[in-house]
């Protein structure tokens, strides 16, 4: 009997890279599904994303156990957390056949976010004990905020599905009938509920952030760019939901707003994070 070789010493980054590769494969297959009008093979993207989620979870767990805290200390970790939320919810929704194609819309976003997260500068090495935020409130406020952004990301994916289906129906495209996408009403309901859930998480995230700030700095509010930005995002989504509740705008407009809002979050989050003294002072290697 030969000696069994030792297992590969994979780091959390290696697992994450593999997960992003799987998201990339799912994205390529999604292009095929788009061209075929979402008529078949709905299990392929779902299966590939499930494989990605396993590797992604291992990556996050390894990082979390290494740090002994919720792994959201820099842009890489924050992005990985948002991505994880999107994949997890997407796979849960995909249990229902009508929502299985969400993965085809989610995979391009996941791949782009994954590649972005892998930029070396986004994951500076942490010095031992360098976490300014440690403890339950620290982990909780970060997790809640990232989960809410993941929720907004999913609502944006729902919005793309809605807009695709709506356009095909308006243009009398045959693929609108053939596709296995859910009905417009169902997509609008899913989109709205996701925004509500994400908004709830964001609200909870803001409250815990404030509580944590009070715990460590004895103030409830600080004019930090990121804190102001999060409050701005909260106010924007509040207006969006109030208008939706009052039936002030159509499903199509709501979809555009959900998509536009998330794109705004996506494009500005990184800049605001880097501008925030509250979050930057502790993370870099001193």
């Amino acid at each position, binding site marked *: 009997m030969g000696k069994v070789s030792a297992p590969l010493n994979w780091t959390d980054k290696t697992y994450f890279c593999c997960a992003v590769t799987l998201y990339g494969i799912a994205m390529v297959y999604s292009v095929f599904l788009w061209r075929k009008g979402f008529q078949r093979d709905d299990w392929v993207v779902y299966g590939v994303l499930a494989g990605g989620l396993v590797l992604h979870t291992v990556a996050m767990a390894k990082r979390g156990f290494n740090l002994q805290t919720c792994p959201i200390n820099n842009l890489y970790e924050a992005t990985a957390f948002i991505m994880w939320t999107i994949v997890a919810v997407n796979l849960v929704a995909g249990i229902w056949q009508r929502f299985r194609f969400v993965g085809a819309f989610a995979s391009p976003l996941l791949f782009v976010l994954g590649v972005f997260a892998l930029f070396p500068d986004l994951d500076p090495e942490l010095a031992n004990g360098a976490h300014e935020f440690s403890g339950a409130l620290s982990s909780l406020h970060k997790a809640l905020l990232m989960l809410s952004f993941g929720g907004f990301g999913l609502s944006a994916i729902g919005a793309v599905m809605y807009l695709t289906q709506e356009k095909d129906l308006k243009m*009398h495209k045959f693929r609108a*009938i053939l596709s296995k996408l859910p009905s*417009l*009403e169902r997509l609008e309901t899913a989109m709205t509920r996701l925004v509500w859930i994400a908004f709830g998480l964001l609200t909870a995230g803001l409250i815990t952030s404030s509580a944590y700030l009070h715990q460590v700095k004895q103030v409830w509010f600080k004019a930090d760019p990121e804190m102001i930005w999060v409050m701005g995002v909260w106010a924007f989504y509040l207006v969006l939901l109030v208008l939706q509740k009052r039936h002030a705008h159509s*499903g199509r407009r709501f979809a555009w707003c959900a998509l536009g809002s998330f794109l705004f979050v996506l494009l500005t989050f990184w800049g605001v994070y880097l501008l925030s003294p509250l979050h930057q002072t502790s993370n870099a290697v001193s």
Partner: protein
Amino acid sequence: MPIVCLGLNHRTAPVTVRERFALPEGELHVLLGALRERTVAKEAVILSTCNRVEIYAATEDEPQVLLNELRAFLLKDREVDADPDEIFYEHAGESAVRHLFNVASGLDSMVLGETEILGQLKAAYQLALDQKATSGRLNKAFQKAFNVAKQIRTETNIQRGSVSVANVAVELAGKIFDELNDRTVMVIGAGDTSEKTARALLSRGARSVMVSNRSYDRAKDLADELGGRAVDYDHWETEFAAIDIIISSTSAPHYVIDRKKLEPLQGIRQHRPLLLVDIAVPRDIEPEVNFMEDVYLYNIDDLQAIAGNYLRLRHEEIVKCESIVDATTRELIESLNVSPVPRRQNPPLSSAGEASAAQS
């Protein structure tokens, strides 16, 4: 004992001829008895639908003898202007079985892949079975035909999609609305197609239907038939807040619904989606309304284009279906041609060793 088939259908005979050969359902059992008395058929099944009249039979005689007798049986007491050689088709042996499978699978139907014929074929076979007019051959052939139809339905897309305007409208509604069971349908103009469309929507669970027609009495009649209520033609807009689907088929020479009229009404509907199905020629609904948010307008050409696309998809499946039919036909013919193995009291010993063991 070969199986034969003699018949006529929508391809070989126009409706003026088909209606002369239509066999009343109530008399089929009598005809089955008469058929077996007057011909050499040992087994028989008679299928009579609006698009075809066919007799499947099995005989111990020459197939052509039976086919001639079946032809004479069908022509008896009927005056037909057309040439019988042109209107009747004949199949014997493998060809008859293949034809039966094609009929059962809807491959020989006017609307390719339709399923109604399978039900009619089952009913015809059941009647023959009850009359003890079938035996080994036809029983085996018909059971196999039902299996082939099922296999084709599950393994191919021959029955996919709707090829009628009414069902396409239902499919569209399914793409817009989550469920149909709490929807209200309004029919403007009590035409035949609009009635069919409304019926199709109601059969899929639409909650209620309103009918508005220039003649209130006609509207009332149709509303009663559909289990809905009639609405005054000049004031149908008052009901607009509750409506989700409008089917319009008036003979008005101008637009009955235009953007100017619809825009203020959409506001009171709180941006709920609205499906407009315009099956009138000239059109009842101004095409501009399709540019309004939450409004989806389909006219008769749009619906027919979708039905045509489905039909094209079904035609693409024919090769796949034919290979299933061919394989099963060969399988059945082979099994019918194998003579039954005589029963033995003691199975023969297969080897010398076993033989000697038995002797000892």
